[in-house]
C-alpha cells in the first residue's frame, strides 16, 4: 500500500513527457518519470520515495525500441529486461540481466529503470559501460546523445526533467568476448555480494563492477593493472585491488573484507577466461 496519493499520466511523445514534467513540477507535484515503475511502488510503500505525479514513459515509441541500425544496436529504456534477454542482441547484457531480481520481476523491470534505479546495484549498466555505448537523453533542452561513460558517474547524471530514451551500442562490442559473474551472500538468490562484468576489446580487458561500492563503476586504473601483461595474474589482480574506489560496502550482504576476497578470486578467473581469448 503506497500511503501517499499521486496523479498518473502516460504521455505518448517525448515532448509531451517533458512538457508534463515541467507543468507538474511548477505545480509542486515533485513529478517522477517511470518506466517499469517497480521502485515507486516498493520504495513508495516504505516512504523512502515520494511523488505527487508519476509520468509513465512506456507509451513513447522511442523508449521502446529494440532495433539494429546499420552497425549499431539501439535499446529503448522502457524495454523490460526479459524482452532484452529473449531477443538476446547483446549476450553480455543478457548474462547480466538474467541475474537481476528474478524472472517474473524482470518482466516489469526495464533497462532504463534498472540503470536509473535508486537501489544502487544497477547491474544492467555494466555491459554498456564496457561497450562504451552512447545514451540518448530527452529533457527540457531537447534530445541529446552522449557517451555513457561521460554521463554515468555512480548514477546516470540526469538533470531535472531529463530521462533516458535509449542506449546505442556498436555491434562489434556486443560480439566481443565477455565474462560475467555474480556472487551472492549465499546460493543463487538475492542482491550481489559482488558482480563483475568483463569484456575483451581491442586486445584489452575491460572491467566493470557492482556490489563492491554503493554504486557500479568501470575503472581505468583497475583495467590498466589487469592489462599489465608483464606481471603474473596474481600480481595484476593484487595491484588492481589497490586501485578500488571507496567506500567498500559492509552491509547485510557481506563485509568489506569478504567482498575484496571474493573480488580477488573473480578477477583472477576473469583474467584467465579472457586472456587466452582472441576477439
Amino acid at each position, binding site marked *: 500500500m503506497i500511503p501517499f496519493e499521486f*496523479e*498518473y499520466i502516460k504521455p505518448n511523445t517525448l515532448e509531451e513527457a517533458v512538457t508534463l514534467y515541467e507543468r507538474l513540477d511548477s505545480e509542486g507535484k515533485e513529478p517522477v518519470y517511470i518506466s517499469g515503475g517497480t521502485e515507486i*511502488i516498493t520504495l513508495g510503500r516504505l516512504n523512502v520515495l515520494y511523488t505527487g505525479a508519476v509520468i509513465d514513459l512506456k507509451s513513447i515509441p522511442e523508449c521502446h525500441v529494440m532495433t539494429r541500425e546499420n552497425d549499431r544496436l539501439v535499446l529503448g529504456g522502457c524495454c523490460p529486461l526479459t524482452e532484452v534477454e529473449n531477443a538476446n542482441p547483446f549476450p553480455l547484457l543478457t548474462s547480466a540481466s538474467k541475474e537481476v531480481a528474478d524472472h*517474473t520481476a524482470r518482466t*516489469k523491470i526495464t533497462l532504463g529503470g534498472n540503470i536509473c534505479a535508486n537501489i544502487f546495484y544497477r547491474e544492467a549498466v555494466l555491459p554498456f559501460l564496457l561497450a562504451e555505448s552512447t545514451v540518448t537523453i530527452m529533457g527540457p533542452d531537447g534530445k541529446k546523445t552522449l557517451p555513457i561513460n561521460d554521463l554515468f558517474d555512480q548514477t546516470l547524471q540526469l538533470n531535472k526533467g531529463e530521462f533516458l530514451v535509449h542506449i546505442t551500442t556498436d555491434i562489434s562490442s556486443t560480439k566481443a568476448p565477455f565474462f560475467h559473474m555474480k556472487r551472492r551472500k549465499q546460493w543463487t538468490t538475492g542482491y550481489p555480494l559482488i558482480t563483475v562484468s568483463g569484456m575483451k576489446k581491442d586486445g584489452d580487458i575491460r572491467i566493470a563492477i557492482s556490489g563492491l561500492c554503493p554504486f557500479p563503476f568501470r575503472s581505468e586504473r583497475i583495467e590498466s593493472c589487469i592489462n599489465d601483461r608483464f606481471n603474473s595474474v596474481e600480481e595484476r589482480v593484487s595491484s588492481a585491488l589497490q586501485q578500488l574506489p571507496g567506500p567498500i560496502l559492509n552491509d547485510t550482504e557481506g563485509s568489506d573484507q569478504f567482498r575484496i576476497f571474493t573480488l580477488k578470486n573473480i578477477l583472477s578467473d576473469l583474467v584467465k577466461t579472457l586472456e587466452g581469448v582472441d576477439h
Partner: protein
Amino acid sequence: MSIFQYVVLKINGEDRPVMIRSADTLLEVLRNELGLTGSKPGCLNGDCGACTVIVDGKPMKSCLMLGVEGTGKEITTIEGLQGTAIQQAFVEYFAFQCGYCTPGYIMNCQSLIENEPKATDEKISEWLKSNICRCTGYEEIETAIKSVLRESNSKDRPISRESEMD
C-alpha cells in the same frame, strides 16, 4: 488527471470498470475493488511471487504493477484459470500444503508452460525461483511442472475428483 482514475481492466476475459487510486497496485485493485482474492499479498515488494498473475501472456507480480498500468492489457488471475493440467498436477503431486503461495505459483507455471513448452531444467529453475513456497521443499512443484511439460502438447484435462491414489 487525478489521484483517482476510472479505468476499465480486462480481467479473465471480461471488461471490469472500476474507480481506483492511481497509487493502488494491481494486487490491491484485484483484491479490494474486484473481490478477486485468489492473488495473495505476501511481501508487497516483488520478492515472493504469491500475487503473480498473467499480463499479456507474461507472468507479472501484481504488487509491482499499478492498477492504472493495467488498462489495455489482458489480465488473467487464478480465478480465470480452471481445469488446467498444471492445477491437476499440483493436486496429484501434492505440490502445495498451506496453499497460500499456490495461486501465484500456478500462474507462473502456467505462463511458463505457455511461453516455454520445451523449457529446460535451467529455464524452469530460472522462472520458478521467482516464487517462494515455505511449506514444500520445492520437489513436488518441480515434479508437477515437469509432468505437465512432458505432455506439453496434451489438451487441458479436467481436474479429477478422485481423491484416493496409491
